[in-house]
C-alpha cells in the first residue's frame, strides 16, 4: 500500500511548478522530485502524529487588534519607483498582454 502523501509524483512537481510560475527542465523535474520526496518522507513523521488536540499556531506571539489611525503618510516619489521598473509607459508599469489566462 502506498502512502498517498509521500508518493510525490513527477506530475505533482510539474503541476506545482506551474502554479509557482517556474519552468523546469526534465532533469530538474527528476532531481527535484527525488529531493522533495526525501524532505516529505521526513515530514511524514510529523504528518502521522495525532495532534488533533492541539490548535495550529500561525504566530509565536499573542497579539491581537493591532490597528493604525486613518491618517495619510507620505507616498513614495513616483519617479524614483518608476526609475527601477522593468518597463514603463505613461507613468504606469507596462507588462506584456494578459493572454489566455484571464481570471
Amino acid at each position, binding site marked *: 500500500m502506498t502512502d498517498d502523501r509521500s508518493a510525490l509524483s513527477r506530475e505533482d512537481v510539474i503541476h506545482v511548478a506551474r502554479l509557482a510560475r517556474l519552468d523546469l527542465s526534465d532533469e530538474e523535474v527528476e532531481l527535484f522530485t527525488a529531493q522533495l520526496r526525501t524532505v516529505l518522507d521526513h515530514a511524514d513523521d510529523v504528518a502521522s502524529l495525532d*495532534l488533533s488536540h492541539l490548535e495550529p499556531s500561525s504566530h509565536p506571539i499573542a497579539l491581537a487588534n493591532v490597528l493604525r489611525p486613518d491618517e495619510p503618510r507620505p507616498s513614495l516619489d513616483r519617479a524614483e519607483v518608476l526609475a527601477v521598473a522593468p518597463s514603463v509607459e505613461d507613468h504606469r508599469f507596462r507588462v506584456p498582454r494578459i493572454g489566455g489566462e484571464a481570471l
Partner: protein
Amino acid sequence: MTPTAVSLAAEVRAGQRSARDVVDEALATVDAGDGQYHAFLSLMPDEARAAADAVDAAVAAGRDPGPLAGVPVALKDNLCTRGAVTTCGSRILEGWRPPYDATVVTALRRSGAIALGKANMDEFAMGSSTENSAFGATRNPRDITKVPGGSSGGSAAAVAAGFTPLGIGSDTGGSIRQPAALCGVVGMKPTYGRVSRYGLVAFASSLDQIGPFATTVEDAALLFDVLAGHDPLDSTSLPSQPEATVATVHDGVEGVRVGLCRDLVDGCSPDVVARVREAADALAGAGAKVEEVSVPEFGYGLSAYYLIAPAEASSNLARYDGVRYGLRVNAEDVAAMNTATRTAGFGAEVKRRIMLGTYALSAGYYDAYYAQAQRVRTLVMQAFDRAYSSYDVLLGATAPTTAFDVGAKVDDPMAMYMNDVCTIPSNLSGHPALSVPFGGGEDGLPVGVQVLAPALQEALLFRVAQVIEDGAP
C-alpha cells in the same frame, strides 16, 4: 585585535578618534582583505563617509552622536537600504535599489553607527552555508576551505575577519546563530517581534527575526538595544520597549537554573558536545544550578520547519514576477514573462523551497502538511513552556559540527537542512537564543554554544552568555 564596538564608540564619542578615520580604515581593510573571503557584495563608501562626517560634526558641536557613534556595521543584503543595491543574494534583484530604508537601518543611523556595506548571504536567506548566493560563496575567515555557515554568512565573516566590529543578520531557522558558531563570533536571535521586520525582505514571516553579530557578548547586547523596540509599521512588532540589556550583562548567573538540553546535544559531533558540557561547567562554577533536561518535542521541529518556512516563502516570493522591479525576462504574455523571469532569476534551492511550500499549501495537502506543522509548532511552544517552568535558560549546541568543507553538502539538501536541528526550535516558538564561541573542535575550528531563554528575557540571555564568554578557553 580589532577594537570592540563599546570601546570604539567610547573613543569617538570622547573625540579621541574621528569616525571618518574609523570608516576610512575599515574600508581600506575590506579592500585589502575581502578578496579571499567575499564577505561583502557591495560597499557604501560615500554614504559611510557622509555618515561618519555627520557623527564627527555632532561630537564637535557637543551633541550626542549616539551610543554606537562611528562604529562600522556589515548589513546582510536582505535589509533594504535606500538607494543602495539590495540583492538578497539573488539574480532576480541584481542591481535593485530600494526607495526606502528598513526600520533597523534608520535605527542604526540614529545610533551613530555606520553602515559600511551589504553582506553576502544564501539567496533569499535559504541555506546554511552561503553557497546558495547567486554572486559566489563566502569563505570562513578561520579557514577559507570551509563555509562560514548561512544564511547570514557574509555578516558573520565580516565580523570574524575584523572588517567591522558589528554585523546584522536575519535568523529564520538559525541563520544568525549557526554562522556565528562556525565563524567563532557572537550571534543572537531576539524574541519574535522585538525587532521590526519592516524593510527585511521576507523569507518566512512568522519565523524571521533580525539580530546582531559581534565579537563580544557586550557588543551584541549594545547593538540589540539599538535595534529593539516597537515599530508601528510592523503589525507583529511587540508593543513594549525592552529595558537596555547592556546595563546588566555583567551581573552574573548566581542561582540561575540552567537546563542542559539533551535533545540539543544528541547527534552532534563529540567535540561539540564536549565544549557544551565545559560551558555548562563554567556556568556551574559561576553559581548557576545546572541539570540535564530532555525536551523530546524539539526533535519534531525540523520537519515542521521545513513545511512552514517554505510554505510562507512560496507566498512571500511570489512578488518577484518581473512586473514592478528586479529582473524581467520578456515573453509574449505576462504569465510566460513571470515564468521566464522566475526561472532565470531564482537558484535551485529557492526553487526547491518554493515548490515544497506550494505543495504543502495546495488543495488536498494543506491539512496533512501545513496545518499539521502548525500544530507541531504549538507542541514545541508548549514543550518550551514546560521546560521554562523548571529552568531559567536552556543550554545546547548551536550547530552539530564545526564548519564543513565548501561544496560538501550542496548536493544533499537534507544533509544541509540537518544543520538547523538545534536552532529551529526557538524560531518556531519565537523565543530568544544566541550562540557564543566556546573553544574549538578537534580540527581547531570554532565551536559555538547556544543559550536559549524564555520570551522577552534577552537581558538574562546576555548575562548567561557573558559568563560563558568569560570562561571560554
